[in-house]
């Protein structure tokens, strides 16, 4: 927030004022980016074989959503979106912790990080 001289915290502190040209990034760009990231996450989730990679894709999806939330928060001028992002981050962290613990156990038991090897429930 370098350049923010106001006392209250508002969302438009990102705009450059006083001297420089006002140039806002259109919100649609953020949304598209978020969508692309989310899509990449989905693709990685579905098609990668390495469990770690799948987890990374999950994190990617979560962060794509975070991005979208922040962008909308900026657009509306409300902080609700950004506050919710914190919730998402916390949940993502917890989930990552548990999930990686499971991955470690799987890796130990199956001697491999290939998700196709985890098939003991196959009928």
């Amino acid at each position: 927030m370098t350049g923010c001289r106001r006392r209250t915290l508002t969302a438009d502190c990102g705009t450059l004022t006083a001297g420089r040209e006002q140039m806002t990034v259109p919100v649609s760009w953020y949304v598209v980016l978020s969508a692309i990231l989310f899509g990449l996450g989905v693709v990685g989730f579905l098609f990668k074989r390495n469990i770690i990679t799948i987890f990374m894709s999950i994190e990617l999806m979560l962060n794509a959503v975070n991005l979208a939330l922040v962008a909308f928060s900026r657009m509306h001028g409300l902080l609700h979106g950004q506050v919710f992002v914190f919730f998402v981050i916390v949940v993502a962290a917890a989930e990552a912790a548990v999930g990686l613990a499971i991955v470690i156990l799987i890796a130990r038991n199956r001697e491999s990080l290939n998700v196709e090897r985890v098939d003991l429930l196959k009928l």
Partner: protein
Amino acid sequence: MAVLENLWLIPALPLAGSVLCAALGRKHATRLVNIIAVGCTGLAFLATLELIREFARLRPDQIPHLRSYLPWIDAGGFRADFAFQVDQLTVVMLLVVTGVGWLIHIYSTGYMKHEEGYGRFFAYLNLFMFFMLILVMASNYLLMFVGWEGVGLCSYLLIGFYYAKKPASDAGKKAFIVNRVGDFGFLLALFLIFWNFGSTLDYQDVFAWVQTRPVEGLGQVGLLTAVGLLLFMGATGKSAQVPLYVWLPDAMEGPTPVSALIHAATMVTAGVYMVARSSIIFAHSETALLVVAVVGAVTALFAATIGLVQTDIKRVLAYSTVSQLGYMFLACGVGAYAVGIFHLMTHAFFKALLFLAAGSVIHALGGEQNIERMGGLRKHIPWTFGTMLIATLAIAGAPGLSGFFSKDAILFQSFISPYGSKVLYAMALLTALLTAFYMFRLILLTFFGAPRFDEHHVHVHESPWSMLGPLVALAVLSVAGGWMAAPVLWHGSDHFEEYLAPVFARAETLREARAAGHGAAGDHYQLELMLMGVAIAVSLAGFAAAWQMYSRRPETAERLAAQFRPAHTLLRNKWYVDEIYDTVIVKPVHWLSAQVLWQRIDVRTVDGGVNHLADAARTFGGRLRRLHSGNTRSYAAWVVAGAVAFTALLVWLTRV
């Protein structure tokens, strides 16, 4: 006043006996069962005697004596209780049921001695007594119907006593089913009464209501005619009249004491009792009376013709019973209810005696029932012969015996009653001729002539006194049981009819009104004596014909049978009625049940439907199961697909 206040004792005693026999009747407890069964019935008989003593002390306005013991149905204005009523008719019926019933119980201890299921037999027999007593003592139609159905049940149980034998179990089923057809009519009558009168089925209330309605003449089919006809339909089933008599001959599959008690003395008379009890209803409907009389006369004649050529000793007696029941209905149908009940009583005596004696003969011959294989038994079993001869004389109408007075009264009434006709009289007279003939045929073939059985292999022995005692008692009753009507001979009055007069008073008034309207009143003493003479002549003729054909010239029977072969075959095969029923009713119903109801509906539709449902569930489940592939990536793919679908749904919903 002890029994009058505690009327419930009379049916309760046999019920207790039944329960005890069922509980305790193990194979070696015959003594105990004897004591219980005979004792309970005997006590019921004693209670009845005491009841008569107390009843005699009642004033006319205290009759009928009503006692209600247990509220039963009390719903929306309709009320029916376990309530008993005692009037003169009840007294007569009670005497017959408990008296003859007791004698038959004693007889059964001898007859059934070596049979399996001894305790079961007496349990059923006592249960039957219970229901029969309920039937005759009930004070409303619903309770009577309880007794009605109950005796039908016991009849089924007892006919099918030897349930392992297919003919016996078939006969039991036949009896119950045919009875049911009649009961259908009975129930409809009850419904009609209930619907049109309403709050109760008590005799007193219903009869009072009927009194207020107009008399329905011949051809007018009003409410009371419908009720009367439907009630009679019930009687037709229970009392084996045309067309629902077919179960009675088959019922001979049961043990002989059963035939004596149920199918001669008591159960089959329930229909007659019911018609007599409902006399006021019938008196209000000339059409119903005519139907009763005609069916009675037709049945009497029809059954007598079949009895002419039967060869099983019990079958002859069975058809004879059907015929005599026809007489009773004829009497009721011409308005002479007391006469009908009189014949009911005398018939109970001699017919029970006939059956018991037949049982004695069968027992003596070690199980033979075909009279063509008997003969010359007179010297071997004199007591059985003597008592059976007395009964035969009674049924044939030998002067002075009980049957003479009752049968004669019926003939007389059918002649002179305003509801009677010469045609009915002629039919009844012809039946009397045939009755005398076939009964003497039976006696001659069984007891006279050369033995047609193997005298060396069959050890003919007289029955024990447990069996002979009741025979003698019934023989005495068959002789003396009609003397209360004897005063008619010297211009006196029939005491029996007098005794029952209060019960049928209202019906009698209507009959006399009808008679007055047709100018047939007056003293008929001369006519009565003349008709008596005719009846005696007819009986003698029947006897003479039988004597000629079966004693003096035994070839006559064969020759006549050959000469009139078609008629003989027709009669021998019971006019093919059973076969007709089988083709017209039984087979189609069977076909309907097996092919349509069972195959098409139950198997294909119901079972098929359920099976299809199960198959569908299984198939669907099978397909769904493949989701659980164990393949994590496919799980992941489904998760994504679900998420996409859900999101799309949400978008679509918020759009709309």
